[in-house]
């Protein structure tokens, strides 16, 4: 094969990267968000009383754990230029199923597995409607947002179930012994590593970015676009189901309206973390930093006595600013087209 292409010009060599490593690592949206996170932590530690107490960390992680968990599959979905708005409703549905199972006398692990399976089925309904019926995910999941929530509330009415086995509720609220870090961080880290590897170090992950940027070219490269999306929605349903079990045990409370509105917080955090709503761009470390940033900021502000409506305003401004800055950076890049032309010119010049 080699001789077919070698020409009289001889071999060229290429540098793999146009910029040095430090620049590729530091000049990214991800590192900007991570930097901002450290800044907020630093300022809050100095300025906000009690922020440095271990309890702050415990409560913070406990509270944002569902967002952290669901942000993982959500990142993958948004990178393929789709969206899943039904996740919070799946959390509610899973919570109700857990409650009903325990009420019916099932052991909690069994009820939990059933709840996660229900979440998985809910996710596969989303996936099937998007993939096999060919509907846009925005429309599908707005529909199932109402549908799953309706089923959850319908199953349990306005009542709540709150007599869960103490062993399991205590376990859920437990910290890693000797640290202020809640135990939920362990399953989260396991999932984060799984999703991180899947997104950044597998052929599957490579195909997600290609789908998000150009579905047609992805299909022409042998990527099964539909099936790929289907599995993402299944994953999203499963993780949401698991988050529902956690939510129920953490608050010792199964209700149909649990976690209402959580989907918007999750999507906000994912976008803040540098994932493009237009697909094809984003990385998991940025998303995790995005969730932590929103969580830390509101926790610090709350400790500083700021009311929740002001906190919402600040979070909103942050999100808008991050989206605007993304567009601004894109604009800057188009302005630099001439610089790229210069590089190309140089490459051609060195060609001899």
């Amino acid at each position: 094969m080699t001789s077919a292409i070698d020409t009289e010009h001889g071999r060229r060599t290429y540098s793999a990267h146009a910029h040095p490593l430090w620049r590729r690592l530091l000049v990214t949206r991800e590192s900007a968000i991570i930097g901002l996170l450290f800044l907020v932590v630093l300022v809050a530690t100095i300025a906000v009383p009690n922020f440095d107490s271990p309890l702050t960390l415990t409560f913070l992680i406990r509270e944002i754990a569902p967002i952290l968990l669901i942000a993982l599959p959500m990142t993958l979905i948004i990178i393929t230029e789709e969206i899943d708005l039904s996740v919070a409703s799946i959390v509610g549905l899973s919570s109700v199923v857990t409650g009903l199972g325990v009420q019916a006398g099932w052991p909690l692990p069994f009820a939990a597995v059933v709840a996660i399976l229900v979440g998985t089925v809910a996710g596969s309904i989303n996936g099937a409607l998007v993939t096999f019926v060919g509907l846009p995910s925005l429309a599908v999941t707005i529909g199932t947002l109402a549908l799953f929530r309706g089923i959850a509330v319908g199953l349990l009415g306005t009542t709540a179930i709150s007599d869960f086995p103490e062993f399991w509720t205590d376990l859920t609220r437990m910290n890693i012994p000797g640290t202020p870090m809640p135990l939920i961080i362990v399953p989260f880290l396991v999932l984060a590593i799984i999703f991180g590897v899947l997104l950044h170090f597998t052929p599957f992950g490579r195909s997600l970015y290609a789908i998000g940027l150009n579905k047609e070219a992805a299909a022409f490269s042998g990527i099964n676009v539909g099936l790929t999306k289907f599995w993402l929605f299944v994953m999203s349903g499963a993780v949401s189901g698991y988050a529902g079990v956690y939510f129920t045990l953490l608050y010792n409370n199964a209700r149909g309206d649990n976690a209402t509105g959580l989907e918007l917080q999750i999507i906000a955090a994912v976008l803040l973390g540098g994932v493009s709503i237009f697909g094809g761009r984003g990385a998991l470390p940025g998303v995790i930093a995005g969730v932590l940033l929103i969580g830390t900021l509101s926790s610090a502000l709350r400790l500083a006595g700021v009311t929740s409506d002001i906190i919402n305003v600040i979070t909103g401004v942050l999100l808008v600013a991050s989206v605007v800055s993304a567009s601004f950076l894109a604009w800057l890049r188009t302005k630099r087209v001439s610089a790229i032309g210069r590089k190309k010119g140089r490459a051609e010049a060195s060609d001899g």
Partner: protein
Amino acid sequence: MVQTSTSASAAPPALELSRVVKSFGAVVALSSGSLTLEQGSIHALIGENGAGKSTLVKIVAGLYRRDSGDFRLRGEDVDFSNTAQSKAAGIAVIYQEPTLFPDLSVTENIFMGRQPTNRFGRIDRKAMRAEAVEIFERLGVRLDPDRLTEGLSIADQQIIEIAKAISLDARVLIMDEPTAALSGVEVERLFAVARSLRDEGRALLFISHRFDEVFDLCDTVTVMRDGKYIDTMPISETSIDELVRLMVGRDVTEMFPKLPAEVGEDVLVVEGLTSPGVFHDISFTVRSGEIVGLAGLVGAGRSEVVRAIFGVDHYESGTVRVNGAPLRKGRPTAAMAQGIALVPEDRRKQGLVLDQSVTRNVTLAIRKRLAKWGLIWGGLENAAAEIWASRLEVKTAALDAETGTLSGGNQQKVVLGKWLSTEPKVLIVDEPTRGIDVGTKAEVHRLISKLAQEGLAIIMISSELPEVLGMADRVLVMREGRLTGEFERADATPEAVMFAATAEGAAA
């Protein structure tokens, strides 16, 4: 050195550029651009990609400001700092792919942003429509002024852009590769329109990579190379050979270097492939070492057939076999596993993820093969990409440059590298040299020829007849979804192929 048409009357040239310089930072994109457009004449501007044609056009259009040099319109010095100024001065640029508002009518698109109003300040639809009808009549084209532009062919969209230019009374029309996506009939209609505009006394600049069109349409030709003006001459006093020599600065000994290849076993066997309304009963065989050209007009169903073979599209009946093994339909992965590679027609939409790096694009089709224990690392990708980039001599600063920033020819090399890296047995190339410069074109031809010599079975679709005839061992012709002709290399004359591609009742 610019002034060749001394026969010109007293009228000053419609547009005159001399020794225009434009640089971006340290790099000079245009070191000495000169061009003289006479009124009532069609002028061709040719040159390889990167010769400075686009930069020159962008300066005329007001997108770039020149660093130095003279720019005169009808004898008066001008200086544009934006496109509105150049439009107001009577310059219109018609691009390869017009950007219209799909949800507005043809008429509304022509008058976008400057709709005539009646005395109540409301849009005067009647006057607008009447003017649109009048322009179309003048151009001699039939186009419903009331229909939405959505779904119009690129050819019709270009006509709308031209109508827009005329309604603005543009004196200088620049057409940047207008025929790249047009079929033969559409090209003829565009040329008729262009000639009538010339006869009205307007000046036209026609940029094209197709020599037959340049010779068919234009009165004079200017050649550029490496950002410099090379020469201007009347079209009647030059030849393709001379123009190519001027463009590349060397003799292109052979544009189509066909190498002797040993034709072996049947590799790809297609039988009775049918997809209702698209193509019907397509049967052919491609042997190893053989280049089979697939000729026909745009819309004859050639791309659809190869897309069905590759599995991107479904088909209703028929079979495809590779080395005797039947191929599952509708599965690109199955086709790839059996050694089929498809370099698609539209490299920007189908061939590449333009926003991703060269590396990611080259390795996209082999991502599973590169993975070790299911994991893929940047290092593995970079190594694979470097091999193919260097074998194909892709010109890029670094492998992580976004593919969209490369020139058309280099983008095409990336697509070729992406598919050659899959080590195919059957290589299908659909319009492999569309919109790329002469030098790269010859490189691609040489590559395809050598691949055949090494035993690949190759199907080449091309709308450029000289390319098909120059490269193929065997030519298949399609018309309206059916195979209407098959010619061995020796029998494949332009006349015979065109007859099979166009004539009613021609049969294989």
